[in-house]
């Protein structure tokens, strides 16, 4: 091939690629709708669910994963504004969902929710976390509870039972600490500093937590200060792992017996099992007790969402598929893969730890509150988790950290209200 012919071919190829890149709409295989997720490890679970969905709706999922959360957010936010929007996407609930819904980038799924609620396929308590302006914009992919995973072998060795009161909880921590085991996992690694904050505040007073995250209470309130001082006291006693602990190493730490308790979402169940601990035999979970015995019981809930872009190229097919998502036949398959709690409350998990948590929730009926990450405007939460990380390294800064969080809350709530008005 001569040089000119080669250059011409190269130019033609480039132009072809450019034209394809500017083409309209995502090309999914026939009978499938495109679905974007930020969790590649869920792909085989989505494939299992997709087979069930195809049986019910005639449409399956063409799954695409963007593995980094920040990249995923950028890819989706950019695509939602173009004709290349996916048909379906995984997104967060609460204010992160509202962030997209308020600028008209998501389709209204209220009809699907109402039909599912009529059949008892969805917990009505979490509707507000999936809605904006009283319309539903997301269907939950799972209903993870924030629990305390514990190493059963350590508890048995030290004659400990899962604590039901704060005093028992602290006594268990003191006992394992005395035996040279770190009682609790804790890290300020982005963004996980909020785990202990949300637990301490909600277990002190759940209605205060709800008001605080809704911008109706102050971070400098004596209740917030009390929660921080208790947390500070626990840090002082050496109850936590180092603030720069890498969460990916925690299941191995649980397995080796270096740490006894791990407060986290039930979605972590699968990861702990992958480290070699057997569900129900080597580890189990309990809901963190309230700090005061008479306080209202509560549990933090995290529910990632299935959402449909307003510009979805195959809206009808995607809508039909979503109307079958909460069907028990689909949810059984999905829950078995996920080893977590399905969003359909009639589906009992086959996993012993999750089954136990589901039974605890049913038995104690705690107030379900949204995770801190999704419970306030994203810009406020993103910056506050940085300040909480600062507190975990310098616990003596509790007051100044709360004061910074309050100043930011005032600015960010005012910005948010101005944006949605």
């Amino acid at each position, binding site marked *: 091939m001569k040089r000119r012919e080669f250059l011409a071919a190269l130019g033609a190829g480039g132009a072809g690629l450019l034209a394809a890149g500017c083409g309209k709409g995502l090309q999914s295989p026939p009978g499938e709708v495109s679905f974007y997720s930020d969790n590649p490890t869920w792909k085989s679970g989505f494939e299992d669910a997709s087979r069930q969905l195809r049986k019910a709706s005639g449409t399956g999922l063409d799954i695409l994963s963007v593995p980094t959360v920040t990249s995923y957010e950028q890819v989706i936010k950019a695509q939602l504004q173009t004709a290349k929007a996916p048909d379906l996407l995984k997104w967060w609930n609460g204010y992160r969902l509202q962030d997209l819904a308020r600028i008209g980038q998501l389709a209204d799924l209220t009809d699907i929710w109402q039909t599912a609620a009529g059949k008892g396929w969805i917990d009505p308590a979490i509707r507000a976390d999936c809605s904006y302006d009283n319309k539903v914009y997301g269907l939950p992919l799972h209903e993870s509870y924030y629990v305390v995973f514990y190493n059963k072998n350590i508890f048995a060795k030290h004659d400990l039972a899962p604590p039901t009161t704060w005093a028992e909880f602290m006594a268990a921590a003191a006992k394992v600490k005395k035996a040279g085991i770190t009682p609790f996992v804790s890290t300020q690694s982005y963004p996980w500093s909020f785990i202990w904050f949300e637990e301490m505040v909600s277990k002190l007073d759940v209605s205060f937590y709800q008001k605080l995250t809704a911008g109706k209470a102050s971070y400098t309130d004596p209740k917030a200060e009390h929660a921080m001082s208790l947390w500070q006291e626990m840090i002082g006693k050496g109850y936590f792992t180092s603030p*720069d602990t890498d969460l990916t190493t925690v299941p191995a730490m649980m397995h080796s017996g270096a740490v006894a308790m791990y407060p986290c979402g039930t979605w972590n169940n699968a990861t702990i099992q992958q480290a070699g601990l057997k569900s129900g035999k080597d580890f189990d979970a309990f809901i963190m007790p309230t700090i005061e015995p008479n306080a209202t019981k509560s549990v933090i809930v995290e529910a990632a969402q299935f959402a449909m872009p307003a510009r979805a190229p195959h809206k009808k097919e995607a809508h039909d598929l979503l109307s079958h998502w909460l069907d028990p036949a689909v949810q059984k398959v999905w829950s078995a893969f996920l080893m977590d709690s399905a969003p359909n409350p009639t589906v009992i998990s086959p996993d012993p730890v999750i089954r136990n948590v589901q039974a605890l929730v049913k038995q104690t009926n705690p107030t379900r509150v949204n995770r801190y990450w999704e419970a306030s405007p994203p810009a406020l939460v993103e910056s506050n988790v940085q300040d909480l990380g600062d507190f975990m*390294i310098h616990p003596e800064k509790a007051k100044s950290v709360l004061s910074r969080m309050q100043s930011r809350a005032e600015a960010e709530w005012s910005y948010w209200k101005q944006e949605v008005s």
Partner: protein
Amino acid sequence: MSATLERFSTRTPSTSRRKPRRPLRDRLASIAFLLPAVVLVTLLLTAPFADTVYRSFFDDRFVHQSFSGFANYHRMFSDSAVLKSLLNTLFWLIGTVVLPIGLGLSIAVMTNAVKWGRIARLAIVLPYAISGAAVAVVWNFMLQSDGAINSALKSLGLSSLQHDWLLNWPLNTVVMIIANAWQATGVAVILFLVGLQAIPPDTIEASALDGAYGWTRFRHVVFPQLRPVTVVIVGISLVNGLKAFDLIWVLSQGGPARSTETLALTMYWETFVLQRPGSGAAVAVVLTIVVVAVSWFYLRRQLRASY
């Protein structure tokens, strides 16, 4: 400047004469050859930069933005996290110039003439072949509070030297600069070796005849002849320091409490994490001004000095 031009024109008098006008065909051919580069630079560099400058004067809304004047710049300079980020950028700038150049020059000089130098150089140059993200993963393993460095210090009975390397400022920024130097020194060594091998042996022999050895020879004979390569290495290091991102992002995501951010991370944080495109654009403009100012100041001095 005029003196320089005068000297230049004295050396090459023919260039001062007016050249005959080239035929149209030649001029068109020149334009055709230049056009792809001009179009690419305009599309991919100049236009986005102009758009970023324009965007920095508008508020943070994604749609229906309003003109906000210098509000984004005002907010930026009143944010303590951004001011710390500016300070960290300065640390990086100094660290990425001083460490790789100091170490690179020392290693190149010490290993240039010895037999085992090749093996030593290979060991030092190898990290340069690793990606920044992989370097960060390795250093994270070493620098964590329960990581390799603290474990090694403990096992050697040096527990008093243990630190939370990544948790406290400015120590965390300093160790990240050292981690960066571990990788970046390799390229400095290679370039200094090229420079050393290009030094004419007769200048070394002449200095030996004059009785110049050791430090005197290095200071007065070798180092001045390394000037061109030093200019290049300092230039590369300056740019690397100002665009430091991947290592910091993987090691700490700019935390804790945004204490390890540099301007490049602040720009990313504002634009993509906080979703504030106006504020992010203002940081990008300030970063560009710093990069251009430093490069211009440095290159102007060096290019003037080389005439």
